[in-house]
C-alpha cells in the first residue's frame, strides 16, 4: 500500500511536477481553442458544400469526408509530421496537429452539421425565400440556427472527443498535458505526474459530460 502511494500519489513529486503539468494543461487548452473552431469552420464549409445542388461540388466533398473519417487521426498526424519533411516541408508539431485536426474533426463536424441541415423541412426555406431573403440569408437566419439546435448534443459530444484527442499531440512533441506529464514522469521515475494529468483531464471534461447528458435528456423529452 505504501509503495502504491509512493508510486502514484506522491505529494512531493506532485508539488515538484505541478508547474510542468500546468504548462501542459495551458497548451492543451490553447490547442483545443484552436482546433475546435477550426474543425467547426471546416465542418460548416463541408456541410454547406455537401448540400450544394451541383454534383461537381457535392461528390468530391462527400468523398473527402468519407476519406478523413476512415483515416485514423494518429496515422494522419504521424504522416504529416514524419512524412512532409520528405517533401521538403517541415512543419512544427503544433502546425501538424492543427492541420490533422482540421481534416479529421472537420469531417466529423461536417457530417453532424449536414444531418442538422437536412433535418430542416424544405418549407422553411421556401417561406424564407418567398419573403425575398437570399439563399445565404435563409441559410444564416433560418436553416443554421435550427440545424445547430437539432444536433447540439452531437456537436458537443464530438467536441468532447476532440479535446481528448489533443493528447495525440504528445506523439509529435507538442508540449500538451500528456506530453508534459510523461516528461515529468521520466525525470522523476514516478507515475504521479501521469495521475495528475488524468485527474486534470477528468476535471475539465466532466462538466462537459454533464452538460451533454442534460442536453440529451432535454432532446429526448422534447421528442416525447
Amino acid at each position: 500500500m505504501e509503495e502504491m502511494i509512493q508510486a502514484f500519489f506522491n505529494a512531493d513529486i506532485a508539488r515538484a511536477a505541478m508547474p510542468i503539468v500546468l504548462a501542459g494543461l495551458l497548451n492543451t487548452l490553447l490547442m483545443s481553442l484552436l482546433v475546435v473552431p477550426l474543425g467547426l469552420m471546416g465542418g460548416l464549409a463541408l456541410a454547406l458544400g455537401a448540400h450544394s445542388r451541383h454534383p461537381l461540388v457535392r461528390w468530391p466533398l462527400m468523398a473527402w469526408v468519407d476519406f478523413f473519417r476512415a483515416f485514423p487521426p494518429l496515422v494522419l498526424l504521424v504522416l504529416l509530421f514524419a512524412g512532409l519533411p520528405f517533401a521538403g516541408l517541415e512543419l512544427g508539431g503544433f502546425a501538424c496537429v492543427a492541420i490533422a485536426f482540421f481534416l479529421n474533426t472537420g469531417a466529423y463536424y461536417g457530417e453532424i452539421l449536414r444531418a442538422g441541415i437536412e433535418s430542416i423541412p424544405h418549407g422553411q426555406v421556401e417561406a424564407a425565400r418567398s419573403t425575398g431573403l437570399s439563399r445565404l440569408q435563409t441559410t444564416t437566419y433560418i436553416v443554421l440556427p435550427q440545424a445547430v439546435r437539432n444536433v447540439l448534443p452531437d456537436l458537443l459530444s464530438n467536441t468532447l472527443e476532440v479535446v481528448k484527442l489533443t493528447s495525440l499531440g504528445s506523439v509529435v512533441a507538442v508540449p500538451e498535458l500528456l506530453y508534459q506529464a510523461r516528461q515529468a514522469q521520466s525525470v522523476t521515475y514516478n507515475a504521479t505526474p501521469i495521475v495528475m494529468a488524468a485527474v486534470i483531464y477528468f476535471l475539465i471534461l466532466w462538466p462537459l459530460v454533464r452538460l451533454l447528458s442534460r442536453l440529451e435528456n432535454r432532446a429526448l423529452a422534447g421528442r416525447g
Partner: protein
Amino acid sequence: MIVSAKDIHKHFGALHVLKGVDLDVAERELVFVIGPSGSGKSTLLRCLNRLERPTSGSVRVDGIDMLAPSTDINHARQRIGMVFQSFNLYPHMTALGNVTLALRKVAGKSRAEADVLGQAALERVGLADRASHRPAELSGGQQQRVAIARAIALEPRVMLFDEPTSALDPELVGSVLAVMRSLRESGMTMIVVSHEMGFARAAADRVVFMDDGLIVEQGPPAAIFEHPTHERTRAFIGQIQRH
C-alpha cells in the same frame, strides 16, 4: 394586369404538370383556383413567384419579368406575399420575429421600424397580443394568421394562398378566412388555391377550374358553381359539394 402568366409549361422529370396555362389577374381581383389534386394548381401558384421555375412560358408580376436572368428575384418577391398550407413559421423565432425578419433583412428597415410595422401587421390579423409567442405556443389558426402577417408586412402587391386552410381543424378555419376577407376588403389582389367553396362564392371575383395541367374553364363563382359548362368541372364540383 398585375399578374400575367403566359403559356406556362412545367415538367418534373417525365411528369408534365402544367401544359400551357395562361392566367391574367387584374389589380384588386380575387381569383380562386380549384381542381383535383395533381391538377397543377399549386405548381401554377409557385411558378408565379418562381419557387418553381417554369420549363417554358412567361410570368410578369407588377411589370417585372419574373423569369428574366437580370431580374433581382429577391427584390421581386417582396411584392408577392405567399401563404403556405403548412404555415412554415420559423419555430425558433417569436411571432414578431417571424414578421420582422424580412422587413429588416430584405426591406432594410431598422429593428425599431420593423418592430412597429410588424406589430401593425400582427394587429391586422388580430394577434397583436401574441407578438412574443413562439409558433409552438399558438394554435394552427393563429399560426396561419401570423404567416399572413409575415407576408403582408412587406406590403406586397399580390398575395398567393396555397391551400391556407387545408391543414386546419374545422373550428379554426373561420378565423383565417375572416382575415382573408378583411384583406380582400382592403383591396389586396389575391390568388387563392383552396376548396373553401363558401368563401369562394362570397368573396371571389373569378373561379378558375384546373384539371390535368390545364385551365378547363373559368368565370364568376355563380356561373362555375351553378352552371359549369364542362363535364369535368361538373363532376369535380359535384364531388366537392357532397363533402
